[in-house]
């Protein structure tokens, strides 16, 4: 498949020596919905601005459809962008905002009119054309900004935090609309978010960023199930983590000695377990694999805990237990499953070893200690 975006060792340093990007490399394929996820300040917005051409990079290479982008101004790139805060032109009507890109490309009035009508229909913003941006709601502004960026049919559409700045219900609605629009129109959609739920549910592939570095690139399931670093594992979904030392390995399993006993896990997919014997690692298991059992169920891993509290989410229930004073262990069960326990009741948690794994690297950022990452925050 043809690569639409190729970034090789892209680096950017702001004045005052803040390193925004530290030699980032990745590729994006045709028609991919590519999501860049990371905490605020990790450099994801910088990366998008560099691809758009509104920010220069210091070193490295950037190719869009095979063409070197060094010194190519934004108006000569086959890229469009929906900026954070939408940046609608306040002195233009909604119609003029959406039509802007085509007008700049020198399209004739009839074509612009036709395309604007197509966009307003696609994004359900008909009837707002004559309003000014400050006369429409936040959700409408969001869709107008998308229409304005999309109308020039770029090969790459960059969306900088498009889901922030509106309330949660609208976020979800807009996320679903984005996925449908992507299916309909195609091209590369490249979106930044700090929200793991949107990231996981929308992405074909995602890139987890941290302090200007790539923690992991992969499909949502790859990152969710086989994280390369504890940071990446933590960033998508809930996680139970125990610090421990690798004691023993067999061809299909590893044993990790923790302060709560020795736990069994499958081999990590992204590193060689043989090298990890004797090393401090994070033993991880997702809450949906942890079950409460009152009798001996013959599972591989058992942990004695006290019931602490629960959170009800309608379709599922999150149970929180204490393994000791500091360590909380979570289990997620369907809300239909019967569960009763008194606060402080002693219970046994079990999980199959095939659903647990180990991670030896806390993060790609140097100087982060794995124990600190497990217990610190």
């Amino acid at each position, binding site marked *: 498949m043809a690569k639409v975006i190729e970034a090789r060792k892209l680096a950017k340093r702001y004045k005052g020596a803040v390193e925004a990007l530290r030699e980032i490399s990745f590729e994006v394929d045709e028609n991919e919905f590519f999501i860049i996820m990371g905490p605020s300040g990790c450099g994801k917005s910088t990366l998008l*601005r560099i691809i*758009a*051409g*509104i920010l220069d990079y210091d070193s490295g290479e950037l190719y869009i459809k095979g063409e070197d982008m060094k010194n190519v*101004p*934004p*108006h000569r*790139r086959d*890229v*469009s*962008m929906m*900026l*954070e*805060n939408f*940046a*609608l*032109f*306040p*002195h233009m009507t909604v119609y003029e905002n959406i039509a*802007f*890109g085509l007008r*700049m*490309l020198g399209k004739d009035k009839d074509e612009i009119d036709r395309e604007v009508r197509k966009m307003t229909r696609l994004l359900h913003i008909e009837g707002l054309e004559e309003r000014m941006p400050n006369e429409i709601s936040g959700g409408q502004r969001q869709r107008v900004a998308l229409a*304005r*960026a999309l109308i*020039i049919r770029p090969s790459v559409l*960059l969306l900088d935090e498009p889901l922030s700045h509106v309330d949660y219900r609208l976020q979800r609605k807009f996320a679903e609309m984005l996925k449908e629009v992507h299916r309909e129109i195609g091209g590369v959609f490249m979106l930044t978010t700090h929200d793991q739920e949107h990231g996981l549910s929308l992405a074909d592939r995602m890139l987890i960023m941290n302090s200007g570095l790539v923690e992991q690139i992969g499909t949502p399931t790859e990152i969710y199930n086989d994280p390369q670093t504890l940071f990446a594992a933590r960033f998508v979904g809930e996680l139970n983590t125990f610090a421990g030392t690798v004691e023993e390995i067999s061809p299909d399993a590893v044993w990790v000695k923790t302060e709560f006993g020795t736990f069994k896990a499958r081999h990590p997919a992204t590193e060689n377990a043989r090298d990890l014997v004797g090393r401090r690692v994070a033993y991880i298991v997702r809450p949906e694999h942890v079950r409460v059992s009152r009798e001996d169920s013959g599972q591989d891993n058992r942990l004695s805990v006290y019931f602490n509290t629960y959170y009800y989410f309608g379709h599922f229930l999150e149970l929180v237990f204490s393994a000791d004073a500091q360590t909380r262990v979570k289990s997620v069960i369907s809300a239909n499953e019967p569960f009763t326990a008194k606060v402080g009741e002693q219970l046994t948690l079990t999980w199959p070893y095939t659903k647990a794994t180990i991670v030896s690297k806390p993060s790609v950022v140097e100087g982060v200690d794995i124990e600190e990452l497990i217990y610190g925050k």
Partner: protein
Amino acid sequence: MSTRPPKIMNYILLLPGLLVIAFFLVIPLLLTVVISFMQEFSFTNPIFTVENYIEFFTSPQTPTILANTFGMSLLASLVALLVGYPAAYFMTFRIKSIKTRNLIISLLLVPFLIDWNVRTIAWIPILGESGIVNYLLQYFNIVHQPVSLLFSRWTLIIIWLQSNLLFMIFPIYLALSRIDPDLINAARVLKSPPHRVFYEIIFKLSLPGVIVGLTFVFVNTLGDYITPSLWAGGIQVLGLSVANFAANFVWPYAATQSTVLILISLAVLVILFKIVDIKKLVE
């Protein structure tokens, strides 16, 4: 959040200012209009007539005076815009350090710390026949005789430019610095080449500042009859004519000319402010 003072308090705070404006501006202006309709200046036995206005609009000198007055002010405003806009643009987009920007603003303010008379007389050693400019022109063999630079319409424009430029730069700078840089970025990614980014986004969004600047310079120069009488080589402007008639105690005719001057300026202001929503500059 602090509690808001009651509304009546706001009006009480405004009162001293409003009283000053009423007594020293509004009432005198109304009196001027009343006097402009008098045959002779007399409040005890007034005879009202439109004779003064007929005389003004039929006088053969009037078209020249009006053209001079409004023409020179308009020209001064446009020249100030042409010089001031690039300066404001440079300050906003090219100077990144706030300190440097503040320094430039302070430097622009320096002339206003100098007395008007001194500022005016200071032009003689600059533009006079033995002044700096003539010296340089002769030194580089551009001219062989000293040229008269002091008494012409362009002298007036230069002097007005110097004393009014800040009033043009500042509102434009204010308008430009309020433009969200991401609006410029949005235009760039939406395929605008640089000159269209400037026109479609930067210039259009700075229009309120441009209008305010034009208004400041226009009104300022329109009311100034001393500078034209000193430097403009004897051209007649309406303000000067008002001063002459007033000096000779022909109050009603002076009042008529004043009224016409004020009405035309008001009309210009109304038109300018119709073009641009001035609230956008301060909201």
